[in-house]
Every structure is written in C-alpha cells, then in structure tokens.
C-alpha cells in the first residue's frame, strides 16, 4: 500500500499552484497521489520574491488524493472542505468568497494586502486591493473576526467566486451568513459643510443606527436602547465594545446618584465616571459625625506676584529637581571642637571676629576634603554632557534673609585661613541682612553648606543648586550619650550631616569617602591642623 502511495515531499516554495497549467502538470507528473500539508498553512510565497516570513514547508502528512479531484482548484480550499484542520471549538472558520466585481470579470490580480494572518478585522475593514483590467478595487471584509488562511499573495491571480481569505468568527455571531442591510449601512446625504473625513463621535440622525445583527441581539438581551449608545466604529457604527462601555457607565451612574454629597467645600463635585474616588457603598453604621466648627477666617486671602528672589528660587529649584539626587547622612562627634570652642572664640576676638562659631571650621574642613575629591567640586552643564572640575573652592553658605533663601559664596576657600573664612562669612551675613549682596557674591559657587542646624533639625534632604553637584546640610549639635573606645557611656556632642549629590557624576562611594574625610578632620581637629594648607 505504501508503495502505491507515491509520497512526494516538497516545499511549497518551488510550487506554483495558482496557475492552472502548473497544477495539472504536477498531477500529470506525479499522478493523482499528491501530498497535502496541514490546512493551517500560511500563504505560500511562491516565486522569486524573498519574504522569509511566508516560507512554508510541509510536514510529513501523507494523504491520498481521491481521483475525482483533478480540476484546477486551489489546494487549500480542498483541505478546508476535508476538514483537516483543528479549529478551536468556540470559533467558526468562514471562507470569505471573492464577490463579483462586475463587468463580467472572472479573475483579478492581488496588488496589496492590508491585513496579515492573525489580524483582527471588523466588518467593512479593507482587506486587500485587487486590480482587474483597469479597475483597482478595494475588497472589504464582510465579517468581524480574525484573519486566517490568506489564500493568495501579492501578484497572484484570484478568482471570483472562490475564497479569498478565511475569517475566524466567534460562534455566537450566528448572523455570519446573513446579508447586511446595505440600505441601512450607508448614511444618506451628508451635507458638504459637515462632512469630515475621520470624525470619532459621529452622531447619526435619529432612526439610522448602524450595527450588526449580533450587536442588536445583545442590546435587546440587555434591554439597551440603541439610540442612546454612542457608536465608536466607522460611520458611527455601534460595536460590541460600545455596548459594554454603556453598560458599565449605566452601573456607575446609579451608584453616584444614590450617595449623598457631604462635602465641606460646596464647590467640589465628584465626577460620575470616577468610581474609585471613595464613592462606593452607601454610608451605613458609621457613628454620627459632629457638625464641623465653622472657623472664622479673619482678613482676606492675599495674592502676590512672585518676583525678585522668590522668582529666582522658583526657577532654580525647578531646575534643581531635574538632577537625580542621592543622599548620604552621617553623625559627627564634635566633642573636641566644642571643648576648644572657648579658646577659638578668644582667638577670634583678637582677630576682630566677634562671636566666632564652628561654621568657618566646617567650611575649611570641607575645602581640605575637596582637594582630595575634586569631582565633588565640579560643575556640569544643562544636558550633563560636560563636566568641569573647578580649581577654586567657592563654598556657598545658605542664608536665611528677609527675602528668603540666599546662597552667597566665599571665594577661594582653599587659600584662606579659618579666620579669613570667618571674616568673609560675617561680611556676607551683614550684606545679606542689609540686602546689599552683589552678583559677584552670589554667583560662581562650586559647593554649598547649609547650616540649618542653627535654626533646628538633625537630618535634612538638601536640594543641590545647579550647576553644582553636591550640597551638605549640617544639623544642630545635641548632647547625647555615646559609648567611647573603652566601653563607657559618655556625654558626647553629636551633630548630624546630610549630603546630597548628583548621581550622574558622583557615586555613593565617593561621597561616603569625602564625608568620612571631612568627619575625620572635624572630629579630630589636630588632623585638620596637620593637613592644613
């Protein structure tokens, strides 16, 4: 029996089955026994056109061809009628027959496909463009479904009355065979002034509703009045999705209207489509809310235009928040510094600095640490394409003035002594109080320290001032118990510092090491003295 079956295995690529003569050649050469592959074949790209996605090879599926099937017919149609394919149980594969074009035309050439296999199409979507003689015809789908089995490829000759594609429609859509009422489907006499190519919400005059019979049935099932539904399909057609949306809206509408509106400000309104703004189950079993006390607001709202420093701050902060910040915080034991504070003060007085504080020391220590980590004293441009390692340490100090936050900077701290830094600090502070800060004072900063601890607070999250790349916020000095090296609990003066850095150019390790170095200088002022430049 096997010998009688002349089994020929060949790949579709070399087989041109759409032209009649070749088909008969194959049959005459190999006899009526031919190989049928599985019916779920993709389109066979048959000629020298190279589109690898369409390549098809047969698998060993030997089937005898009955002697009666000798007419030149496309093989896939046969395969379909012999039901070799395994269709999904809920779907029906419907062959979409190429309808009569008119003018007695029997065959056309496929010029372009608008869909691929597996695409979902709706009724009236364009499937392909065919050319017959001099007419170019757009073939539109008659069904909703998924495209399967494209029987022809570009430049093939398609026959009128034979299937063009198979469309997988869902079983529940029994109306597949039914003729669509063409008269209803065309909207009549649109006046020119209103004719728009693609209008999303096209409302038809009353009485003309475009839907498929399946949608109509669903509407009667759910008791929906079709003229209330907004169609989102082409020409204002009502699709199944529109019905479902309408049902959802209908449900949410009923819940929002039943909930009583108890709002404190009468002007706010809950929009009906937002079902998750706390508008849910009706309020039941909740203890009675005491009537709110009406707070008497004395005076009136005051509106002011943001200008001057505030405006500059708005601008700079908006810019700053585009920088990716990362934070690093640490605790510093400033006991030793506090112990020598009295003598620091004395030296300061002698140099002409009234009420010397620890801030100049912090600033100088920062500068010493910056010499070892020049990347923290750098500057990046807007797009973060270039980084400039600044030579001068212009350390800015955040000041709180009448106007708000100002950050003047002390130029060239690397060359200044602690006393000089203190003197500069005082000068800037006075200028800030008198609002006499010059542009030179405010610009060209490279690093910033914020002594927010003088007002209060421990840890902070400072915001970098562009074009700088790092900032530190120093918290207040607290007296806290700490263990010392021996294991004894001692009184320690603890201060917190919070650093923020631009993560585009500085990594965590660098910042940590810088902080450790700065901490080392401050915790043990002798080290600072030794490394002082």
């Amino acid at each position, binding site marked *: 029996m096997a010998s009688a079956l002349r089994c020929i295995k060949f790949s579709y690529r070399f087989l041109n089955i759409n032209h009649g003569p070749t088909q008969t050649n194959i049959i005459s050469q190999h006899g009526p026994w031919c190989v049928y592959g599985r019916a779920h074949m993709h389109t066979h790209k048959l000629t020298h056109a*190279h589109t690898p996605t369409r390549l098809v090879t047969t698998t060993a599926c030997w089937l005898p061809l009955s002697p009666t099937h000798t007419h030149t017919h496309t093989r896939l149609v046969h395969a379909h009628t012999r039901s070799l394919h395994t269709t999904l149980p809920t779907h029906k594969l419907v062959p979409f027959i190429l309808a009569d074009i008119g003018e007695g035309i029997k065959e056309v050439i496929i010029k372009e496909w608008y869909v691929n296999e597996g695409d979902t199409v709706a009724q009236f979507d364009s499937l392909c463009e065919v*050319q017959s003689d001099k007419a*170019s015809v*757009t073939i539109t789908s008659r069904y909703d479904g998924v495209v399967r089995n494209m029987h022809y490829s570009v430049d093939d000759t398609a026959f009128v009355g034979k299937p063009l594609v198979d469309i997988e429609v869902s079983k529940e859509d029994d109306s597949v065979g039914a003729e669509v009422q063409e008269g209803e489907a065309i909207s009549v006499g649109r006046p020119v002034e209103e004719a728009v190519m693609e209008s999303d919400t096209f409302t038809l005059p009353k009485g003309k509703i475009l839907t498929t019979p399946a949608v109509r049935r669903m509407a009667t099932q759910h008791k929906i009045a079709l003229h209330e539904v907004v169609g989102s399909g082409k020409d204002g057609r009502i699709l199944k999705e529109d019905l479902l949306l309408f049902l959802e809206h209908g449900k949410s509408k009923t819940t929002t209207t039943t909930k009583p509106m108890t709002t404190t400000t009468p002007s706010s309104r809950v929009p009906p489509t937002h079902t998750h703004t706390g508008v849910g189950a009706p309020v039941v079993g909740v203890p009675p809310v005491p009537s709110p006390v009406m707070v008497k607001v004395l005076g009136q709202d005051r509106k002011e235009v943001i200008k001057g420093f505030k405006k500059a701050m708005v601008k700079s902060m908006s810019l700053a928040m585009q920088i990716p910040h990362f934070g690093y915080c640490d605790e510093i034991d400033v006991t030793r510094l506090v112990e020598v504070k009295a003598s620091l003060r004395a030296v300061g007085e002698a140099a002409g600095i009234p009420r010397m504080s620890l801030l100049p020391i912090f600033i100088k220590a920062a500068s010493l640490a910056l010499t070892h980590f020049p990347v923290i004293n750098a500057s990046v441009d807007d797009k973060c394409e270039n980084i400039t390692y600044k030579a001068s340490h212009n350390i800015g100090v955040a000041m709180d003035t009448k106007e708000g936050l100002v950050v003047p900077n002390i130029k060239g701290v690397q060359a200044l002594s602690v006393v000089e830094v203190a003197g500069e600090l005082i000068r800037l502070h006075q200028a800030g109080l008198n609002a006499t800060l010059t542009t030179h004072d405010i610009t060209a900063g490279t690093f910033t320290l914020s002594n927010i601890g003088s007002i209060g607070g421990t840890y902070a999250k400072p915001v970098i001032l562009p074009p700088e790349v790092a900032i530190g916020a120093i918290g207040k000095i607290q007296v806290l118990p700490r263990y010392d090296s021996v294991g004894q609990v001692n009184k320690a003066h603890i201060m917190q510092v919070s650093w923020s850095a631009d993560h585009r150019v500085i990594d965590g390790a660098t910042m940590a090491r810088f902080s450790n170095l700065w901490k080392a200088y401050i915790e043990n002022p002798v080290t600072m003295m030794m490394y002082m430049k």
Partner: protein
Amino acid sequence: MLSLKKLSTNLVRNYGPLGAVSTSLYGSTSQPSPSRPRATEPPKRVVFISQSTDVFSNLAFEDWLYKNWSFEKRSILFLWRNSPCVVIGRHQNPLVEANIPYLESAGVPVARRGSGGGAVYHDHGNLNCTFFTAKERYDRRQNLELICNVLNHDFGIQARANNRDDIVVGHDNKVSGTAAKLGRTSAYHHCTLLVRTDRQQLRLALQGDKTIQSKATHSVSSGVANLGDIGGKDMTVEKLLASLGRTFLTEQEQDPRLANGFTLINPTDDWFPGLGKIEADLRSVEWIEGKTPRFTISRSVSLPPCLAGTSASANITVQAYHGVVEEVRLEDGLIACEELTDLVLDISTSLKGTPYTPGIFCDISNRIRLPQPLHTQRSFL
C-alpha cells in the same frame, strides 16, 4: 411652494456655489415627489468643474469625494485639467513609467493616483473626466459611450471605444485612456481626453527605464492623437468641457429644471475639511515612492584590478521594495573572487533599508573601489 431652482439660487447667493448642492439633498430627502416612487428614481446628475490646475489638489478632491460622499442619489461628473505632470497608476513603478531625471530637471511633478491602469501625461491641452457613481451603477462603457456621442454630435469626430476601454479615432490612434476604482459603496471611472496636448513632451516624459524588472502594472503604449487636430481649429478644451457637461446633465433628466447645473469647485481644505490631509498624503514620499511594488534592476559595474577575476566587470542587481533597497546581490556569483562576494555582501547590509535612488549604482561602484587597507582591516576582525 418655492421652486427648487429659486431656492437653489437663493442659497448660492448666501452660501456660495455648494449651497445649491445641499438644496438638492434636502429637497430630495424631505419632499419625495408622489408621482415617482423613491426606489426607482434615477440619481440626480451634477457636474463639478475644478478651478485648480494642481494635480495633487485635484487628485485629492477626487479621493475626498470618493471617500466622503454617497452616490445613491447623485451621480457626479468631475471635469479637471492640470498643468504639466505625469500621473502613474496605483501599482506602477515611476522609474519604469516616466523619465524621472528629465522630469526632475524640468520641474514636472509625478503623482500616483488611487486607481489602477497605466501612466499618462497631463497638460493644459488635456481634459480629465471622472464619473462618480454608486457601486451598483458603475458602468464604464456607458460613460465612454456618452463621451463618444458628444464627440460625434458636437464636433463631428468619429470616435469609438475599443476593447481596452480606450477611445480611439481613425486607425487606432488613442485620444483617451481609462482607469477606475471600486470600493464598497462607491466607484469612480476616470479618463483623459487629449485635445491640444504637446505630443513631443508626452513622448519624452513617458520614456521610462524599461530595463527594470518588476511585477508592477505595465503601461501599454500606443500612438496618440489630439482631438484638436481632427476636430478643427476652433475645438478647444473649454468647448469640450461645456459640451460634456451639458450632455451629462440633460441626457437622463426629463425635467431640465431639476438639473443642478455646473458647479465650480475650489479644492482647498477650507471648503472640504480633510482635503488638506489627503493632499499631503498624495504628495508624500511614502505614497509616491513607497507604494512601488518590488522591482529589480541590474547593471554592469566595472571592477578595479584588485578585485577583477576573469572579467573586468560584474553584474550587480539591486532589489527594492516600496522604494527602499532590500538587497544588493551579485549575478553570476560563481566566477567572482571571494573578496568581491564578501564586499557585495557588506554593501548589501549597509545599503539595506535606504531609499532607492537612481544614483545607487554610482554609489555601489564607489564602494567597490575602496582602498586596499580597508579590506585587510576586515580580515583582522
């Protein structure tokens, strides 16, 4: 009851030429005449005449009407003329059909229309007619017969439509070419009419590169003649236009008052919303070049001595799809040396995806002439 004509003239005064058209729509839908049942009423006939000679505007208007109007109740004849241009069919290859370098140097645009068929040359001596009908009423022969009747009765020219739907005079001298487009509900059939076209320019413009192989629709060339040469000195495009329009309107109408007459059309986006977008699409490279079917073109490229094996030149084939290069390959690859095949493979990968230009072979021959060190560099990688 106000007569339709008076109503339409009032509307024209208030709303411009298209006001008249809307009367006919409302008139017919709201007051069906009791004597004639609705279903068998023949469609009203309207003639539109374009005031623009820009081929893209006119093609865009054609497309706009086709997509936006329903032709159940009306049939339309659209008459238009263009300044010199070449119009190719939907599935044609501009390089094959038209002499692109010549047209580019002359500043003559090439447009691709939405209907099939072959390539034509338009100028001021050519009249285009488009017949818009509902799909059921689509009948090319009927339209062509109307034109032949007009030519016979009004101008004494013996013209007939042949089996290819061309209108010919004398011994198969073509005076008109036809093309059509059918959609789901509407259809149009358009044709050209050569009255006083510059035949010299026509011949030069349509001399494409015939060495290109592709499955694009090929134009069938034939000898052409001008109607103006046959019909006499006083035959002009305007006269033909007027005759055609008049005949179209009065042919079926029992009551000439119901004919809406000629309407002048200004195809701009202000009058027809959405037209601007169609026009932009028609002008775009994606449409004109991007719809070209797959084609291959082979040329002989001379090789530098280092690569020349047995022959001093090689046949290189460029394959392009939708105006973009798909592959560059070597014909008769067996006799080429390995370096050449590698080089062609490299060229193919680098040129793949680039838009096809006629100067591509120049580019390929330059690439083949790369200096030696670059070749050795490749071998190290």
